[in-house]
């Protein structure tokens, strides 16, 4: 069952208590810009996790559904449009009552279109290039270099493209072409194996996104950009030898883009294993890369080498496996309580590490960047402190030094226990979410979240001490939790503030957090 239906299932209580009398419910769907009716929109009402009513709007933008009284999650969708409320909104909670006017108007915002043409270095159209609208991502987990392509289109045989469903606003436009993709999309595949060709460019003519220009997309408008000139080049090989030649399965050789991925697949870099004699050969499209090798068995890694590839093969590179980043680690219990370390699962960007009965572990990192994940702590325990190389770290990422780095995770059995009940009239709440107050969210994956239990309460068994804003989501708004920084900025002041100390047991009553309405 999808998350959407799980959320909609919590509307069951109210709906099931009603009579079976059918009531007419009329939905009008209009364009937010000019109020014009929108034909062909899908109108769906859910409760108890099931679709209870479905219809499509007529040329007047209206749709009538016959339903029993109760509370429903109303969803309206149509390609090329999105709900005029903020992103992350799943729909609207509506109550259908007997003897009352049951009518609602829903506004949709029309998305925009980016259109244009992609030509190669000779001015010939490039067929089956992927053109994306690209946005910078909000920083998460301490990382600040992410770009993502949210909507995309392929060029046709004339090089023409139309990227539809683009959210109005400023966007980068990136084009990539990789002949290896063509076999996937073309039925008329050559039976011969051809050398890889490809390339990428950002609008208007940049190979780095920080040199690219954003274009403005308006609601309901087609923004046609000038021709994008893509230099399609043949792949070249990078080859050499790893010293000393690794035993067993060989060493991993990675060629990563030197200037970020920018949301394009073609800049994803390449990798592979060396042969038993240590030789390696990787074929990539021209560009700037960072090359390095690592041996997972020994933990030895090479220096990273920056290489700028034009149209020539680059042979005879020697990568010496001479560096190592070892962690001498320990899990420490704060206090006298016993902890069964064999139940914990600790991962450091790889398989689970072996933790001995004293909490000690040893790990090799394949570089100076580390990321830890600790799971399996009993209820009531939390990670109190993490230190790497004598420094406290926030979030999950840390930096190691060449040689041996001391690493410690202090866990405490004195997590707070927190319980949330609902005030009268807040029956639609399906999730409660705790966000650290006044601090940047560095570790989105570990944020405390609770789903309603059978008693209608939300329990948090292991909350680290601190101050939190309490957000409660109904079935229409729970998607907002995926952007916690925006939640804090926009609605933080409206969410109740709680402060929890070690071993606290607290409970509060909340109402549904009020988000912007249409």
């Amino acid at each position: 069952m999808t998350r959407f239906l799980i959320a909609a299932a919590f509307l069951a209580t109210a709906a099931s208590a009603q009579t079976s009398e059918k009531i007419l419910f009329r939905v009008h769907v209009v364009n937010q810009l000019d109020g014009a009716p929108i034909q062909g929109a899908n109108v769906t009402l859910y409760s108890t996790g099931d679709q209870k009513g479905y219809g499509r709007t007529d040329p007047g933008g209206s749709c009538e559904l016959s339903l029993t009284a109760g509370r429903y999650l109303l969803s309206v969708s149509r390609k090329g449009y999105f709900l005029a409320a903020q992103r992350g909104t799943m729909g609207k909670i509506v109550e259908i009552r007997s003897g009352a006017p049951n009518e609602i108007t829903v506004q949709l915002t029309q998305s925009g279109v980016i259109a244009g043409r992609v030509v190669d270095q000779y001015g010939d159209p490039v067929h089956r290039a992927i053109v994306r609208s690209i946005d910078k991502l909000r920083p998460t987990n301490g990382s600040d270099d992410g770009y993502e392509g949210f909507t995309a289109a392929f060029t046709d045989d004339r090089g023409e493209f139309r990227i539809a469903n683009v959210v109005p606003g400023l966007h980068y436009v990136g084009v990539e072409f990789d002949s290896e993709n063509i076999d996937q999309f073309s039925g008329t595949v050559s039976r011969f194996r051809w050398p890889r060709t490809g390339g990428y460019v950002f609008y208007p003519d940049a190979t780095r996104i920080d040199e690219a220009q954003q274009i403005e997309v308006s609601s309901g408008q087609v923004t046609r950009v000038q021709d994008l000139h893509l230099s399609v080049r043949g792949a070249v090989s990078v080859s050499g030898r790893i010293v000393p030649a690794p035993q067993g399965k060989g060493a991993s050789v990675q060629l990563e883009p030197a200037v970020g991925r920018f949301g394009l697949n073609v800049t994803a870099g390449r990798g592979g294993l060396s042969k038993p004699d240590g030789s390696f050969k990787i074929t990539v499209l021209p560009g700037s890369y960072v090359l390095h090798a690592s041996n997972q068995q020994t933990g030895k890694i090479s220096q990273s080498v920056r290489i700028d590839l034009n149209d020539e093969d680059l042979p005879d590179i020697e990568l010496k496996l001479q560096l190592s980043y070892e962690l001498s680690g320990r899990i420490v219990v704060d206090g006298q309580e016993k902890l069964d370390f064999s139940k914990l699962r600790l991962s450091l960007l790889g398989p689970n590490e072996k933790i001995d009965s004293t909490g000690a572990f040893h790990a090799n990192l394949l570089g100076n960047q580390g990321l830890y994940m600790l799971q399996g702590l009993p209820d009531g325990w939390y990670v109190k402190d993490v230190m790497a190389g004598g420094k406290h770290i926030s979030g999950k990422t840390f930096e190691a030094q060449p040689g041996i780095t001391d690493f410690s995770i202090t866990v405490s059995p004195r997590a707070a226990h927190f319980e949330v009940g609902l005030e009268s009239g807040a029956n639609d709440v399906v999730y409660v979410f705790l966000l650290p107050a006044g601090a940047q969210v560095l570790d989105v994956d570990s944020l405390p979240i609770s789903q309603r239990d059978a008693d209608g309460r939300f329990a948090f068994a292991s909350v680290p001490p601190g101050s939190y804003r309490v957000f409660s989501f109904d079935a229409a708004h729970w998607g907002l939790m995926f952007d916690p920084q925006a939640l804090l900025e926009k609605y933080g002041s409206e969410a109740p503030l709680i402060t929890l100390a070690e071993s606290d047991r607290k409970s509060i009553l909340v109402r549904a957090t009020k988000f912007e309405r249409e």
Partner: protein
Amino acid sequence: MTFRLSIAFTAGLVACAQQTNSDSIPTAALFGRVVSAQSHQPIRRAAIKIYRGNDQWDQFSDADGRFQFPPIKRAEYGFVAHRDGFTDRTYKVELSDFDNPKELLVELFPQSVITGRVIDAVGLPLEGARIEALGAGAGGDAAVVASAETNDLGEYRLSGLRPGSYRIRAAYRGGRESEFDPTPLTIASQYYGSPEKATEFAVKAGSVSNGIDFTLNPAKPAVIRGTVVTSIGQPVEHATLWIMGRSGEGGHNGQAENGKFEVNDLGPGSYTISAEISNGPSPSFGVVTVQIAGSDVNGVEIVMHASPRIHGQIQSENGGAIPKLDAVYFRRSDRVELPPMKIARPDSSGAFELVLNPGDYTLTFAGLPAGVAVKRATLDEKLVANWKISIESSAENRQLLIVLGNKPQ
């Protein structure tokens, strides 16, 4: 077909300079120009390959469509030119081609394009509909040879088609695009032409056929539920199902357990469901055709009937050692909506066994050794004409004999 190639002799000087051992075999530089056979304009970024044994060399054509390989040894080579949007062109470089060096003219034929629009029942464009060109050859080969998707205007351009006949199909699947998407799933598919029967559509080299439009009416997918029973009405324990649309589209497997089956996610249209039991002492087969018009169909019954087991044997014409044959293919030639092929793999003694369901089949043979041909085949001692056999429902075993012999010189 052999084309004469242009070779510029370099008397092995360049190659010798690159090799430590002297090599007396002369080398020559292969060069030429790639142009469109229709417009005679240069084709740029064409990939050119020459190959011999496991060795191969690639070059790309430049701004004038020209290419040149480094010097190669005087020998026979395969040669092929490739450019997206054009049909591959192959040549053979012969020794005699080295005697008359001149620029090779490589002509590529542009592939064809079909364009059109897909709308729904109220005339709104359907974005994201998939358009496929399927081979329209005999024997029910419904392989997709090219595909495209409609844009936000419902428009598509299906390119990369070689001259020939195709069936064009539009399929749409909307909604439930992620776990956060509340839009209900709706699906629809249709062949171009009559809704009852796919129309074969012929394209010429380099042609652009416009106006191949579709009107689809996406509907909630339906479920077919039913039973699989023996000829005396007993439920079968286990049967393998094959579900396929009227024109051979969307073929996929299913299972029937304890006499019951359920097939999900079917759009409006006609479907053939065949059931097969090929293991065990009593192989059997049953088939039913079901029409879906937007709602679930319950109570469908598939009645199984006996299928014969074929005992096959490969023999040598002269009674000597049996040549190794990799496989015998039994391609279904009567009904496109049934499983298209069965394969038998003879063991080291040349024996094989398989169950053939009632229908017409064409036999083909894979992996014949060099110089060996299939001389004749008999089914129950009757000569198989044109490698075609017809199988009827029966519990009796059948004997298939395939005789191999030397190819005529």
